[in-house]
């Protein structure tokens, strides 16, 4: 990829990639602008790290705090809200902790903790994992002493963690997009959803040419702007799997 081709690299979370969203967005974008987009899907931490090494032109993740630090450190031009969905708790139908129908995330986690039902945590410092830890904190529980017992930190991506949860009949928290697109559900179902605390915001940031002279800021800005434009946002809204919408656009269009 030489400097003058019309292509950019996006460092992205795996959830957006695995959901198949890019498969519909990128052809439309290419048609509109002629720019080719290459997606590198890795863990949130690795994505930010790669972008800090100037190995991407755009960062698309869901860890607002880390993204903002990325910008204040001078690596990103500006962070924009792009879209959202929500997190859900999934588990086996037997539901030994009886979490089905719980109103809040806190309730759910308390029930899991008291019944010592097996819970598969990502344990990888990803956006999802950070969110999960905030929720435990809010519920007033510290699961870490039970690590390796009922609290299983998989240290893996979302898909791998879901495979593990399904394999051992454990509860897990996942973003809805990954879950809907996930094919190894077996008898697992969404058991808890809808709490405001489970909101999941995705952001987009163009990498700054100040720190990374080699990045194609212009093309990156074009991609970011298009995604936040009417056509980009409606393309996001139109993307469905199994009849369900996966992402809800919420960029501040201008």
């Amino acid at each position, binding site marked *: 990829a030489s400097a003058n081709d019309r292509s950019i690299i996006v460092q992205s979370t795996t959830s957006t990639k695995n959901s198949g969203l890019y498969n519909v967005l990128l052809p439309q974008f290419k048609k509109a602008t002629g720019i080719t987009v290459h997606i590198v899907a890795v863990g949130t931490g690795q994505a930010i790290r790669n972008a800090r090494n100037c190995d991407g032109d755009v960062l698309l993740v869901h860890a607002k705090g880390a993204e903002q630090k990325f910008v204040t450190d001078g690596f990103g031009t500006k962070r924009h809200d792009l879209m959202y969905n929500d997190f859900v708790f999934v588990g086996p139908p037997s539901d030994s902790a009886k979490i089905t129908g719980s109103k809040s995330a806190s309730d759910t986690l308390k029930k899991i903790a008291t019944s010592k039902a097996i819970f598969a945590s990502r344990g990888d410092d990803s956006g999802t994992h950070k969110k999960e830890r905030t929720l435990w904190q809010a519920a007033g529980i510290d699961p870490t002493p039970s690590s390796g017992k009922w609290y299983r930190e*998989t240290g893996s991506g979302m898909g791998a963690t879901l495979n593990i949860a399904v394999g051992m009949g454990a509860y897990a928290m996942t973003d809805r997009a990954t879950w809907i697109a996930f094919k190894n559900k077996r008898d697992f179902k969404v058991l808890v959803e809808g709490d405001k605390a489970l909101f999941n915001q995705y952001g987009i940031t163009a990498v700054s040419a100040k720190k990374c002279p080699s990045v194609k800021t212009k093309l990156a800005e074009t991609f970011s702007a298009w995604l936040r434009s009417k056509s980009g946002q409606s393309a996001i809204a139109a993307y469905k799997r199994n009849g369900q919408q996966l992402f809800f656009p919420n960029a501040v269009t201008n």
Partner: protein
Amino acid sequence: MQDVSSAFWIAFGLVAGLDADLLEIIALSLRVSLFALVISCLIGLPVGAVLAIARFRGRSAVLIALNALMGLPPVVVGLIVYLHLSRAGPLGWLNLLYTPTAMIIAQAILITPIIAALSRQILEDLHTEYAEQFRSLSVPAHTMMQALIWDARFSLLTVALAGFGRAIAEVGAVIIVGGNIDHLTRVMTTAIALETSKGDLPLALALGIVLLVIALTVNGLVMALRMTAGRQAYA
């Protein structure tokens, strides 16, 4: 590149500090890979020996398949073991998924073809030398296999070390069947993968260095043993 040099410092600190968590991970890595290696040798060496001496229709096809199996992708092995051991799978009742045993099974499946294919070659080379003498003495097949394996034992050590290297460095299969669960099934390679996905590249590299130190230690011990044995008995 700074990462690389800082990785050495971190690695040094990790080893010097002898962190309990790290020791646990190292111990599990060694346990899983050495166990898998023993199983693979118990299966792979006889298979290699049989293929080295037996001449039968379709032998070429078997050799092609065996050599091809050296290219068995770890993820695929992981998936197959996962599907068998999963709750829904035929062996689900054994409750082995996400245990070190599952990881041993997966690694053993992965490296048995390597041990078998490489030892086949070495034993066959020795067999071209011994074949007529053995046939003249009417040596039964199993005695022949034993004799070949014994007389080639020092060359076969390199094969075993190749298998060990493959096992200890392997991540794709163990992460699927082991799950990289902290304090339960986390080994060096899955820990490295985790730190990498967290973006903590210096720590990941440092763990990699520690892993290489482990591999060096094991190889050094084996070499020392080999030299003692070579001095005592005759090669």
